[in-house]
């Protein structure tokens, strides 16, 4: 079961980044290279030349994902295939009507039983699983309390009748079954009575009995958008029907944090982006850590696979200022406590930043039209530096041996 499930996940989420490799597009791969074997080198070079001449770079044929920055400074992705590509390849963004993965449409179809072909409900969604699991737990608890009541009678010395004893055994058996419920099997779900609210009727097209539209869209964090634009160049971003360049987007994002036109190198957006880029480039799936009082959470592959392992807190490294930091013991201890109880690792990520730059806009001053935005910004980001310190509570009673 577990193995099947993992295979299933690997199939859906096989690629951790929204860039299509040549291997994925054409099913080809480069031969292995053995440093001490010159023939393998030649073969490698030959294959490389062959592929480069005969194949077009797949990424150039994929259309840009469309992101819109709306009036309320929200980054939206509307189109279903774009949303899927972003979610399945790197877990970017959040569906505004769902817990994280945008599943509203599917859930609604399941709920309203709009799939007449009978395939409805074949894939159980995360939210449904939660509901089922809760029901299962409740049943388990009910069964347990029945057993406990009988056991109490036994302890009190009141002799139980044979019927009671039989009942007790039966309950115990039931409880053992309920302990490991098979949530993903879709047994009794179909008996649920279909229940349509008044407002649901607006959603359904009367002629075709289908959902009229998908109300849900994907919302992205500014750092995610900037990574997709600056780091990977896979999106096209518009604001008031105008296309934004990487540079425009950078300035926009910085100004989301502080409205002044002067952008300091210790702008919060830049800190967050630098850290985000760092962990993304190392292969981590980075998502917001607001739920645990930290800045970011690091997942090894992504939310469907495992819990986040690390919680990151970003600390600007202000060496110029006084030697004691602005953080006090209490704040850090409380964060560490929360993060510790959910079995995550607390990482303090210190960011060094350039102190000699007054205004980040300076970096554009000597730029000609031919210079690439990404190259200039890359040079700028290289002035930052990341240092990680782990913060861990030590309880001496647990480490005695």
């Amino acid at each position, binding site marked *: 079961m*577990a193995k099947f*499930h*993992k295979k299933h996940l690997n199939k859906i989420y*096989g690629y*951790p980044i929204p*860039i299509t*490799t*040549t*291997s994925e597009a054409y099913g080809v791969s480069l031969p292995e*290279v053995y*440093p001490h074997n010159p023939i393998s*080198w030649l073969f490698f070079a030959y294959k490389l030349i062959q592929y480069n001449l005969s194949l077009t*770079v797949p*990424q150039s044929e994929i259309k840009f994902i469309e992101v819109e920055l709306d009036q309320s400074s929200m980054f939206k992705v509307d189109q279903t295939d774009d949303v899927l590509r972003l979610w399945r390849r790197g877990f970017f963004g959040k569906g505004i009507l769902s817990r994280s993965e945008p599943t509203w449409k599917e859930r609604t179809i399941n709920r309203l039983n709009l799939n007449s072909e009978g395939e409805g409900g074949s894939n159980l969604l995360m939210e449904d*699983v*939660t509901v089922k*699991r809760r029901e299962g737990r409740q049943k388990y608890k009910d069964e347990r309390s029945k057993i406990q009541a009988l056991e109490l009678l036994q*302890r009190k010395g009141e002799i139980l009748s044979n019927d009671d004893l039989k009942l007790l055994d039966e309950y115990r058996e039931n409880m053992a079954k309920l302990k490991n419920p098979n*949530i993903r099997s879709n047994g009794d779900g179909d008996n649920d009575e279909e229940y349509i609210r008044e407002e649901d009727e607006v959603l359904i097209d009367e002629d075709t009995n289908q959902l009229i539209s998908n109300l849900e869209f994907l919302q992205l964090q500014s750092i995610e958008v900037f990574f997709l634009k*600056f780091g*990977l*160049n896979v999106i096209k971003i518009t604001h008031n029907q105008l296309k934004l360049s990487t540079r425009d987007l950078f300035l926009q994002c910085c100004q989301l944090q502080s409205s002044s036109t002067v952008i300091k190198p210790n702008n919060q957006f830049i800190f967050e982006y*630098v850290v985000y880029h*760092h962990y993304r*480039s*190392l*292969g981590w799936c980075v998502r917001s850590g607001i*739920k645990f009082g930290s800045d970011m959470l690091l997942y*090894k592959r992504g939310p469907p*696979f495992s*819990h986040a392992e690390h919680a990151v807190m970003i600390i600007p490294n*202000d060496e110029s200022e006084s*030697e*004691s*930091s602005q953080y006090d*013991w209490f704040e850090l*201890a409380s964060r560490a406590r929360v993060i510790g109880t*959910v*079995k995550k*690792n607390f*990482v303090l990520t*210190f960011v060094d930043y350039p102190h000699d730059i007054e205004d980040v806009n300076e970096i554009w001053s000597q730029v000609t039209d031919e210079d690439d*935005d990404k*190259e200039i910004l*890359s040079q700028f980001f290289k002035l*930052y*530096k990341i*240092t*990680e*310190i*782990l*913060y*861990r*509570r*030590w*309880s*001496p*009673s647990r480490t*005695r*041996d």
Partner: protein
Amino acid sequence: MTKKELHLQDEIDDDESNINKNDIENNYDIEDETPDWKILTRSLGSANNSNNTNGTSGIPKRGDKDFEPDNTDIQTSTLQESREAMYDAISGVRGHHLKQKLLSIWIEDEEDGGYSIIPFMKGNYFRDIGKAYPNRRYKNCIRLNPIETVYLVERGSMIIYLGDEKFTNYLKDEEEGEFNIEEELVPVDLELLYSLAFINERYTIDKYQVYSYLKRHGYLILEVDPKKQQPPQWKRLEQYESSKGQSRSIISWGWDWKKWIQSFWRPFPPTHSLHYLTTHYFKVIDIFKSLRLIPTYQIYDSLRKTINTTTTTTSTTLDDYKISFNVWKPGSQFSKSNPSQLPDYQIVVVNTDKVKFPTLKVIQRLVNTIEYRFPFEQPSQIPTPPVIKKNDKMISKRQLKYDQRQKSNQSKLNTAQLNNIEYLKKRDNLLKYGKTSKQSNRNVVIGVINNGIINLINLIENEFSLTSESVIDELTQLHKEKSDIHGIVYNGDK
């Protein structure tokens, strides 16, 4: 889950092969657990209506309790029995055997505020406590610092007397006859001792609290002399690195070739916006490699910095942060006279009223002053003492099951797969603890005191990029093919 299970879960989670162990459970965030208010109101309502007929209050039931009152006689009688056992234990005569009576004398001292001496050593407290105190009168005399003195007295293991001039003269001089400590000197009570002991900055009550807390857990502790300077670590690092030379660059030369060939078909470098639109990538990992942009700290960087700036800037803040204790675990092979084994923890004691959380600079300076053994200095083979498992009961059923399953799983795997598991374990340990099981990490423990309440935190230097030489060496041993890059990138297309 109970604490033990959580702890166990931690260990299990270290193994990546377990990622899908409970995958249904694992898919959900903690905040799923919103309360169901219906249940609450229902139980409250029923309690109000039925006037507590069955003895339950209106509080909803939450899980199992071990000794929940069920109004049976068995429960009350068991309770009574254990209560009596406790009274029996307490009412036994308490006291010290005359043979074990430990005497000490407090001696005032200009420099450190004072210390105590024990003329006749008894008992086994002295594995880590005390230093030899050579004098003319007593042969095996031992000197205790104020913290050690207070600890033994407060524990009820030692009686202390106030030394006077006559006694100090007696110590210096071998002429006079005997000196009866108990008759001629005044005993000091705990209250007075506290005021005598903690008048100096070197021995504060904060430090004593951390010390006694750890002692009671059985740890072995030595004070770190603040005047004694550690021989600088960087000298050893410098020596090693210069002796090692450029052997690495020759090895990695081959890999550069590959990059070089590929770069022919890179019309734009990775820092150009058109790069991914114009370059063929065959492996996902290469895309991630090309994304690396932000410079990162590598282990020993801060140490290397100190090589270049040899001036020791002793600022006031660092003085607040100084290692005060070296701590060894209770089971370690430790001897006071030859503490060759590195301490397990090195502790700084600070008070929240005086000191704020350290900056990165301070943390790094602290870490650079600990006693540390570089990976290249690891003694090749120390015969580790056989681990005696005292409490077999502690191993839960779950652990046993897990162990068995692990064993049967491992027997099915070939060596390459086992190696891979080992590699993943090492990699995750490096990320989680900044160390592999053998190697020690660069860390420091800070004992934070707030009005007598202790919080111990461990700050560990780490690098997620896994690019420093020592880390690469460690990981490449197990995974030769990965010698150019280590990380967590999922290689689905491999």
